[in-house]
């Protein structure tokens, strides 16, 4: 029923690391929640069900906890609903999408468990390998788990659902719940569907590359701080999938050392993303709680009134932007190195495709820096942009403690990299892959070696030490010079320094939005109060911009349109006269007769064309009839 192997225990560790700081934060947050009992019951059940998911060892237990996890998180989104339309819509969307994925999981388990839902995972491999279409099973996994993880194109629900939950729950959902989907993906690919086709790895790689770019680009266009962070979850899931897909590609090409390296990189990024994304959501939650608004345009200068929140948020922002020497940098470095290991691949066309993934990852990290400069600078720096921000105070000590604890997790992932990698290596090894801990830390535990040919080396402690050392020297120089300091207001060309002349978050992302306008297609509304009949003079102007994600516009709304069309035709059919029903039966009969001849092998183009003509005429005359 339950199993306690290394991968499961690793993810239990992940959950504990994510939940323990979160509990303190939640205790601090609790007084502001109206339905306390409802919240606590679902919070506890949510955490317990996640642990259940990673420990489950047969289909029925797994699916049970999976469903509990989905339902409790759905209820948690609704905690602060108060009949707010956006929350209800988001919860409905989330409920639909999570069950959309569940259907595919159910199909997957029905096939691989051979009808016996109490079969252990390790016994499923035989049934799966006897199954004629393993790619179908793979697609079930992709649809089932990656829709929960929020990979493109099944990600549209994520930026709606995660921000609507209370902030500690957003932290849990983004930090942990989507990792549970990745855990399932890992587990069943390794235990049930092994060995893999090379195309599967490439598909995951492509999904990862697209997810990372789409996530960061839509994050840049957001000015709702929690939606921005939720979009970054999509980006980071993409990065993890790049590492994972690369590992699958290497494995199917029998490059086992590189494949283990990529998997370790992906696991490492899972841990890192959990740490900094939880911290960011906690920080965003504190800000939201003090300012009562999610709109970044109304923040500003919060670093002065909320120092703890601001500095922990800065740590997380540096880490998620993959800047050295933080943990986010280390795992992205590992993923880069595994991509560069592709030079040993023999297949030239595959080899030529990898630089595009490198390009996507590099552009993503560049844009992520821009995005977090925006998020941090607009929220915490400058002058306060509204009354809400003016009266913000530091949050209570429990919430502060939660954030500090989580930043300690971030720092520990940076400082104790060898310790964590040792366990990732153990987990990969327990799944039957090569152990490469000795190759990563060859001589000492300070240098992280890439296992690629002539690979690079990074030494987080060296970088951190150098950074601190050089800053100290510069500060000493500063102290020795004994510089006189005078405070004065910012020069604003003779005008008063005012908060409304600062850059807004919409303005900050302006150049990037304009450059990617083919993707964003923003709806822009400019209204001006013209003075008299002057075309160029106006007393006030207003610029509004809204970005609807392309995927939502094309994929989801397109699906809705097609479903509407089909249901309209079904509706038309059900209101036909009785004679037409008879005609339909006749046509159906004709179809069966004709197609039987085709399938039985008695096929020629001439008869096919003749039959199609007959069918069309009979449908036109008997069913459609004369158009009114």
């Amino acid at each position, binding site marked *: 029923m339950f199993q306690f192997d290394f991968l499961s225990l690793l993810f239990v560790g992940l959950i504990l690391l994510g939940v323990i700081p979160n509990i303190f934060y939640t205790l601090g947050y609790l007084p502001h929640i109206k339905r306390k009992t409802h919240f606590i019951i679902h919070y506890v059940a949510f955490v317990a069900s996640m642990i259940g998911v990673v420990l489950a060892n047969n289909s029925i237990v797994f699916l049970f906890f999976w469903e509990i996890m989905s339902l409790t998180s759905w209820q948690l989104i609704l905690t602060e609903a108060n009949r707010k339309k956006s929350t209800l819509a988001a919860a409905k969307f989330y409920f639909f999408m999570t069950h959309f994925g569940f259907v595919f999981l159910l199909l997957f388990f029905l096939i691989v468990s051979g009808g016996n839902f109490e079969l252990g995972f390790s016994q499923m491999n035989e049934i799966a390998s006897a199954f004629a279409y393993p790619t179908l099973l793979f697609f079930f996994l992709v649809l089932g788990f990656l829709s929960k993880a929020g990979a493109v194109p099944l990600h549209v629900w994520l930026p709606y659902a995660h921000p609507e939950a209370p902030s500690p729950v957003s932290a849990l959902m983004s930090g942990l719940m989507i990792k549970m989907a990745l855990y399932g993906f890992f587990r069943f690919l390794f235990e049930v569907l092994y060995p893999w086709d090379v195309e599967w790895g490439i598909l995951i790689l492509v999904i990862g590359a697209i997810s990372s770019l789409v996530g960061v680009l839509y994050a840049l266009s957001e000015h709702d701080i929690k939606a921005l962070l939720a979009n970054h979850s999509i980006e980071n899931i993409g990065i993890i999938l790049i590492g994972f897909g690369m590992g699958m590609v290497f494995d199917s090409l029998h490059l086992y050392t590189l494949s283990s390296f990529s998997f370790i990189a992906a696991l490492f990024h899972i841990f890192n993303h959990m740490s900094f994304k939880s911290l960011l959501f906690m920080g965003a939650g504190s800000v939201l709680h003090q300012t009562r608004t999610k709109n970044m345009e109304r923040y500003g200068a919060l*670093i*002065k009134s909320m120092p703890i929140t601001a500095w922990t948020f800065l740590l997380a922002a*540096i880490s998620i*932007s*993959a*800047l*050295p020497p933080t943990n986010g940098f280390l795992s992205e*470095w590992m993923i*880069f190195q595994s991509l*560069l290991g592709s*030079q040993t691949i023999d297949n030239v066309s595959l080899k030529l495709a990898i*630089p595009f993934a*490198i*390009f996507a990852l*590099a*552009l993503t*990290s*560049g*844009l992520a*820096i*821009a995005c977090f*400069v925006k998020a941090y*600078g*607009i929220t*915490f*720096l*400058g*002058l306060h942009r509204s009354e809400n921000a003016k009266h913000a105070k530091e949050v209570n000590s429990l919430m502060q403690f939660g954030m500090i604890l989580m930043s300690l997790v971030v720092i520990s992932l940076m400082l104790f990299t060898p310790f964590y990698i040792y366990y990732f290596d153990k987990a990969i090894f327990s799944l039957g892959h090569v152990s490469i801990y000795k190759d990563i830390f060859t001589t000492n535990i300070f240098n992280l070696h*890439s296992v690629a040919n*002539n690979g*690079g*080396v*990074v030494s987080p402690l060296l*970088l951190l030490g*150098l*950074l601190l050392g*050089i*800053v100290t020297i*510069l500060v000493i120089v500063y102290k020795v*010079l004994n*510089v*006189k*300091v*005078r*405070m*004065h*207001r*910012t*020069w604003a060309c003779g005008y008063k*320094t005012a*908060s409304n002349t*600062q*850059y807004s978050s919409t*303005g*900050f992302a*302006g*150049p*990037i939005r*304009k*450059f990617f306008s083919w993707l964003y297609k923003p709806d822009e509304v400019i209204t001006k109060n013209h003075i008299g009949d002057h075309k160029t003079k106006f007393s006030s102007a207003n610029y509004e911009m809204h970005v609807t994600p392309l995927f939502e516009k094309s994929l989801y709304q397109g699906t809705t349109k097609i479903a509407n069309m089909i249901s309209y035709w079904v509706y038309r059919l059900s209101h036909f006269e009785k004679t037409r029903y008879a005609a339909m039966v006749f046509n159906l009969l004709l179809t069966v007769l004709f197609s039987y001849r085709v399938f039985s092998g008695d096929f020629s183009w001439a008869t096919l064309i003749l039959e199609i003509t007959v069918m069309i005429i009979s449908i036109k005359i008997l069913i459609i009839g004369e158009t009114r």
Partner: protein
Amino acid sequence: MIYYAFSILLILLIAPLLLGFIKSFKMFLLYKTPSSIFQPYRNFIKLFSKEMVISQESSNITRIAPFLVLSPLLIVVLFLPPIVGDAFYVRFIDAFTITGLLALSTFFLMMIGLDSASSFGGLGSSREAFISAIAEPAMILNIFSISMMAGDLGIAKASVNLALTFPAAHMASFIFAGISFFILLLTETGRIPVDNPETHLELTMVHEAMILDLSGFYLALIEIAASIKYVIFSSLFASLFMPFGLELNPFLATIVFVLKLVLIAVVVSLVEVNMAKLRLFKVPNLLGVAIVFAFLSLITFYVLGA
């Protein structure tokens, strides 16, 4: 080890000189009376002794960020390729770490821009974020291309490999990477087609806009950082794309290295004199060229066979 210390010292000391040289050479080309090439040193000394005015709207970020702008760049200087044959060098630092350190410096620079509550700062940060985001993939792709040609992902080791055994079979990808890197040099160090370091006109400035509200010691730190960023890029260009002179004796090798830097400075100032600054939304086209060349370089390398 003594050569290592010497080369770091040389690079740090020559950094302001190169910027001074570009400025006076440009003035010479424009028939103006050239300023002294030692002017940057005088500026720094003046700034160090001046009183510092800090904006009262700004927060502690402004007080710590200048240090964090300069120090990652100083770390990169420690990892640069050697300029003398058998000198010690840090062989293992790869392109991703170096771009990461450069990005860390830019990150805090952009923070300074947003911290002083002035619209100029935000303007500069926004533009810098835009340009550096698009420059990042080009940078990573083309350094990787060159380090694959050299057969080592560590940049310093790659340059030594190139100097010892030049991969003549991969001349095409070498040249593509060189073109791409030169565009990046102009972009990242804020030279004319992308940014004009000499004006304070709000239509054109990028780097200067972010640091308008700094003065005295902090301004000196940022200006030093700008000069060091320039010398990092030009010495990378000199070591990776002009891989010769390492085998000479230390004294000659140093002279050859300095001549290479001067040559790059001459080319940069010729570009600056002959080109107009691009509009902000034309800059991605230039960077697109850099990205395409970096791709071409990698692809020709792969197709011709490693």
